[in-house]
């Protein structure tokens, strides 16, 4: 099937890829979406780009012949429909970053068009979700993250305290006031271990905070898109991020 507009071509391609269970449909859609961007930047009309790209079914046939029937069962289980991130589930998108965002726009051009302007239904829907879903989810997550920080600090601080205590005991022992045996050495190891565990928790806390901030940004953007038609915040780490693989 041949098309004359970008939106028709992209939805035709998405549909054909899904119908044939082509793996990595998201990446494929990004390629074609960016091809249209390139054409637009070069001053080509959508109809010209479509004509030069050719028949969508031929393109999909070529994907099938290029992969040479190498589709695995695992790949078949994730058809294109699942890779399209819908507007109703921003949490899913929380840590996938730049590429998922691009994919979302690439694979759902008509959704993008729909959300280009505020609509009363959309605004009511998003307010409803803010009150009954996002607020509670975010508050719960925030309290969990605060607890995580508390545990992290507790581990790091007690590790340091045990370490310092052990050294003091060793110093007292060395001065000959009391007999300490091997206690200071085992305490020092215990302190180091707790500090190391605290260190790992620091990394986990940072990752959790980052994910949480991205989730908040996703919620803010979801609201912003409903009210103003476009995103207002960028996610952390979006710039120059390399592709997943």
């Amino acid at each position, binding site marked *: 099937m041949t098309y004359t507009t970008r939106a028709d071509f992209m939805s035709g391609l998405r549909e054909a890829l899904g119908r044939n269970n082509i793996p990595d449909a998201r990446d494929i859609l990004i390629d074609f979406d*960016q091809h249209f961007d390139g054409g637009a930047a070069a001053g080509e009309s959508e109809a010209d780009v479509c004509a030069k*790209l*050719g028949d969508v079914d031929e393109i999909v046939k*070529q994907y099938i012949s290029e992969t040479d029937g190498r589709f695995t069962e695992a790949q078949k289980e994730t058809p294109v429909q699942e890779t399209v991130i819908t507007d109703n589930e921003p949490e899913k998108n929380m840590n996938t970053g730049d590429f998922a965002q691009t994919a979302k726009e690439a694979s759902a051009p008509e959704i993008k068009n729909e959300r280009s302007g505020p609509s009363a239904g959309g605004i009511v829907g998003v307010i409803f979700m803010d009150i009954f879903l996002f607020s509670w989810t975010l508050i719960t997550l925030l309290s969990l993250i605060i607890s995580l920080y508390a545990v992290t600090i507790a581990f790091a601080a007690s590790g340091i305290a045990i370490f310092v205590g052990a050294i003091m005991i060793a110093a007292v022992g060395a001065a000959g006031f009391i007999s300490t045996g091997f206690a200071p050495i085992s305490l020092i190891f215990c302190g180091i271990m707790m500090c190391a565990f605290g260190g790992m928790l620091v990394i986990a806390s940072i990752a959790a905070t980052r994910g949480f901030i991205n989730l908040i940004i996703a919620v803010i953007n979801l609201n912003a898109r409903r009210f103003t038609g476009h995103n207002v915040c960028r996610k952390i780490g979006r710039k120059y991020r390399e592709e997943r693989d």
Partner: protein
Amino acid sequence: MQTQLKRGTLELCVLTILCRCDRYGYELVNIISDCMHITEGTIYPLMKRLKDAGSIDSYIVESQEGPPRKYYRITESGRKIQKEQESEWRSFSEAINKLINGEEGSK
């Protein structure tokens, strides 16, 4: 030009272009379509195969003016394959040229 003949050589074309510098999809497709008549949509399935095979690789570059662009670059194994295919192509096309020009056996 025959489709089968073109398909066999397009891989060499893509690898050779990427050997010189990294390109984004639209740019790469246009370089090829400037040289020969192709259905542009058929380059992407080929690039996907090359990418799956590890001959090429892609990365995203944010752009000030427009949307982020997906660039393709050649990998080390891709470079190797390009060299092999290039020498194969040269000896093959030399042989065919000889045959067409009637130079076979006349040394």
